[in-house]
């Protein structure tokens, strides 16, 4: 099954919509709760990253019997140093974003920890595409 959601940069109040929709679907499919938890955490962090760091993006979810593949493609500034961005605690978030409770620099490390496969493709000045794979069993 294929699903698609749009994400707008700066719209923090709507962030989390895609992850709660996906959560609902996975629960209805009786997927193991601990797996659902990993999907929700990874997707939520990735969704928030588009809201916090990019201009807009599209989330695509592909659910098969073996697992879920999430593709998050954004138009945005891109990530100049991916290795640095992946370091726990590293963040370029503005003070305003931090005050909203985001920007602790744990997003990307958390995604990678919860995913079975994880890939970042990014072009500075153009955008970033994250691919996250999580197996159901």
């Amino acid at each position, binding site marked *: *099954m294929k699903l698609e959601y749009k994400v707008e940069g700066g719209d923090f109040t709507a962030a*989390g919509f895609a*992850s*709660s929709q996906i*959560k609902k*679907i996975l*629960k*209805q*499919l*009786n*997927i193991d*709760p*601990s797996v*659902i*938890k990993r999907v*929700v*955490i990874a997707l*939520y962090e990735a969704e928030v990253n588009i809201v916090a760091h990019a201009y807009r993006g599209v989330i695509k979810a592909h*659910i*098969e*019997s073996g697992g879920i593949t999430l593709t998050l493609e954004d138009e945005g500034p891109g990530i100049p140093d991916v290795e640095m961005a992946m370091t726990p605690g590293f963040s370029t978030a503005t003070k305003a974003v931090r005050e909203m409770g985001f920007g602790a620099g744990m997003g990307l490390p958390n995604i990678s920890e919860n995913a079975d496969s994880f890939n970042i493709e990014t072009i500075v000045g153009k955008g970033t595409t994250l691919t996250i794979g999580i197996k*159901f069993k």
Partner: protein
Amino acid sequence: MSRTTYSRALEILDDVCIGCSHCMKVCPTEALRVSDGKAIIHADWCIDCGECYRICPNRAIRVMDDDFKQIYNYKHRVLLVPSVFFAQFDDSVPREKIYHIIGELGFTEVCAVEQSVDSLTDEVNEYVRNAQKPVISSFCPAIIRLIQVRFPSLVDHIMQLLPPIEITAQYYKNKFAKAGIPESDLGIFYLTPCIAKIAAVKSPVGGYTSPINGVINMDFFFNKVYLVYKQRLPVSGNISINGELSSKGILYPTTGGESANVEGRTLAIDGMSNVIDFLEILENEEIDGVDFLELRACDQSCAGGILSHRNRFLTAESMKKYAATAPDYHKLTLDYQRYTSAVVHMDRIEPRSMVKYDRDIDAALRKMERARELRELFPGIDCGACGAPSCEALAEDIVKGQSEINACIFLRTLYEKRGELQLEEAIKIMERIWGRSRFDKKL
């Protein structure tokens, strides 16, 4: 869907139900449908919250309380009375009088349910210190069942300690055993403000068996007591009264009355939809640093219980007034403390998965995909004329072979307009959902 019309603590009276669908609209697990002019319950999905009972305009939902007469099967008849019961009366009715009337009605002893709260509180704090956070209160049985069915990933957050009612019941059992009274002579009855508590006594969770022998409906019992009071019938006063309660105990069933006693950061949330909203974000791990959650199905907690007839705000107010006159600790606290820790624990609560589509994931995916396609055809007004609570629920029912596309009144009208469906067929479909009699009326 199975045609079973019962769950554990409530049942639909087929001969009274007119299939009005009010209940179907309020069920938090979408466990109700209308078929053949009657409401039917999907027993596996029912969490005994009683929202259907609350809204039913025809009194077609029966509470599975016990026959009052069965109290006479026992020589010693103890009634465990929750503090919310006294608040059913306005403040001019003296508590002493209520106790005596309860004796007149057949009980040999009354005991205040929340007597065990003081010793339980110490256990709760000890438990919360060592448990995975946030700990979710085990007080409200409707919430426990909601979590089992709709939030299975959170079951391990539910506190594995018994609620006050069970500790008090165990205390009584123990007390009578010590006095050498045979178990078969002792009948422990609980006066319940809700349906969920009936379910909790009859089919408890966490590998526990309740010593409570029967459950009395508070709404029914209030009427009995009030009648004696109003008619000023003579009352002999032949009852042993154990009304020991601290202010903590009295307030425990009200909103915030439980969380107030727990150390650390706590929240008290009442009302089914508020609780569901919160559990959604808790499940997403969006909540950090909360130690304890008091979650109650009813608005104003037990003051708004389904079998509490009085306005919930007035009930809560009366409970607060009663608490203001009560001591901080009561005389039996030490006695309770001595053995509470030995009986208070229960096992892990198992999730009760709500199979929406299919147990097999491939089949479930196929059905879900088909349901999503169907969903696009329906108007999205959730009118309920199909006998399902929402367009989404109808789509699910169809892919499971439990309903049909033509059940949708909008699609049916479209097919009729196109000449693809005959009027007679359309009527037959309506009759299958809403019953024949509805379309035979002479106007």
